[in-house]
């Protein structure tokens, strides 16, 4: 396995860019700011567990954008410039190159998230809040997973697009669909179906499951189920936090796996 070598290389190349430091700084400041504001306005008790849904509202926007902007050019850019030819002339397989890029970029996002989350956690706990350590760590894990989903999606886009520009367009289409319009579209759909008399009130179970497949909704459900004390996710089993967790993992592996398969069989020209 040589993906570690590629990851190390990719890490230093990526972190060397000013734009990357800026993006990661942006992400970190969103989290830290949330940690600063939350104890001021929140109702008692102030705990790290109840901080989770608060910061999640910021993360559901900030994390996808930062992760995708960090990954969309990873392979497409090197492919366009020809730098990937240097890597693939060395004894690295294409899988090593993809895994290495994923490990390095998801690693950067995770480090920025975890570091800022720890700072935010400290701001929440000091001086009046309570630390619920176990649940806070679970939330850190879920956040890292959510970041990995979007790094995986960004990298998948990078693998299927032949140029950096096309990758950027595809990446923004994904962000627009999932982050910007998804919930509005689902609401409109529900309203429309209600008006047409097809459903009464909420969507039926299957509909709820499908419209709930969007990563940030899964992240939210998993956070509600695993992190918030005393609350459990209402509804049938397929809306539970465990299913949400499993689908999040699928979101990491699925798109990246399919895109890798396509990349592996294509000619670099």
């Amino acid at each position, binding site marked *: 396995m040589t993906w570690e070598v590629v990851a*190390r290389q990719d890490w230093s*190349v990526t972190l*060397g*860019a000013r734009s990357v430091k800026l993006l990661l700084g942006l992400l970190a400041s969103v989290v830290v700011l949330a940690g600063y504001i939350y104890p001021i306005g929140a109702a008692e008790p102030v705990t790290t567990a109840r901080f989770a849904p608060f910061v999640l509202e910021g993360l559901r926007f900030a994390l996808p954008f930062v992760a995708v902007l960090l990954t969309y050019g990873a392979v497409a850019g090197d492919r366009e410039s*020809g730098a990937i030819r240097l890597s*693939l*002339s*060395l*004894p690295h397989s294409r899988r090593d190159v993809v895994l290495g890029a994923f490990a390095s970029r998801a690693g950067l996002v995770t480090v920025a998230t975890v570091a800022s989350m720890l700072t935010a956690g400290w701001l929440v706990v000091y001086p009046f809040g309570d630390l619920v350590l176990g649940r806070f760590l679970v939330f850190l894990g879920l956040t890292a997973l959510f970041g990995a989903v979007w790094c995986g999606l960004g990298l998948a886009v990078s693998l299927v697009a032949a140029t950096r520009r096309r990758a950027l367009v595809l990446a923004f289409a994904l962000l627009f669909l999932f982050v910007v319009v998804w919930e509005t579209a689902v609401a409109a759909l529900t309203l429309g179906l209600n008006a047409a008399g097809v459903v009464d009130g909420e969507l039926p179970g299957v509909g709820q499951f499908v419209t709930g497949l969007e990563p940030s909704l899964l992240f939210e459900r998993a956070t509600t189920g695993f992190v918030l004390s005393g609350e459990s996710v209402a509804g049938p089993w397929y809306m539970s936090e465990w299913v949400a967790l499993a689908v999040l993992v699928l979101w990491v592996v699925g798109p990246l796996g399919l895109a890798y398969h396509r990349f592996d069989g294509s000619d670099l020209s």
Partner: protein
Amino acid sequence: MVAIDATDVSKRYGTETALDRVELTVEEGETFGFLGPNGAGKSTFINVLLDFVTPSQGSVEVFGHDCQREGVAARERLGVLPEGYSVFDRLTGRQHVEYAIRSKDADDDPIDVLDRVGIREAADRKATGYSKGMAQRLVLGMALVGEPDLLVLDEPSTGLDPNGAAEMRQILREENERGATIFFSSHILEQVEAVCDRVGILQNGELVAVDTIEGLRESMGGGTKLVITVDSLRNGTLETIRGVEGVETAVDGDESSNGDPTIEVTCTNDAKMDVVVELHSAGIDVVNFRTEEASLEDMFIEYTGARR
């Protein structure tokens, strides 16, 4: 052991045929020159070898490893200077070489490598600021890391000045003496002529000739070229010479320095004197007379031009 073994390799892009049933064997320890005009398919062949491109048909093996199915194993023994690469953004020359060292699990000293290719003083500068020639030296340096058994170089002298090209040839000779097999492509003939044991000539995706340079000269009818300066050239003289047994071509050459006409004749070695005798008996005085070995360039034009 066979270093490169290509069997029936074809690559088609739609209706375009980039490689047409190429059969090629390069023995261990050889320096093999892959020659052809631009667009003949040299890079496509090297891309197949590096698994950048999957052949439509056939296969290439490097030291017994299939380049597509066991690409990593094949490339483990390779040092590569590909075409169409670019250096990594934001990394210095030294970091590039360090990447190659880690990737090949070698223990070379990056500075020694950079010294050998002549860019030691640029080691800590960002490689994106290098000139094309320096980048070429850098990537050659990366290729040399870990004493590879086979060096595959696509147009290695691109961007190098004549001095740099000579240094490059010197490095290739040293590597060959160490025991490495060398496979490089070029459209510059003197490069190939200077270092290669054997050459293959590629034309429109087809391998039209594989031989030693001497062998290629042999196949060109002994490969002797006569340049004869005469006092005058009459109608019919060239036809007369063409009639001599062993003569392949006879053409009107450039005028000599003092304005006398010249005749250029290619013929077998044995026919040389017959040509002179023939001229003499036609009443033409031979002012000067020299022979040239047919250069690879003549052969190259002969091979590739004839098929256009």
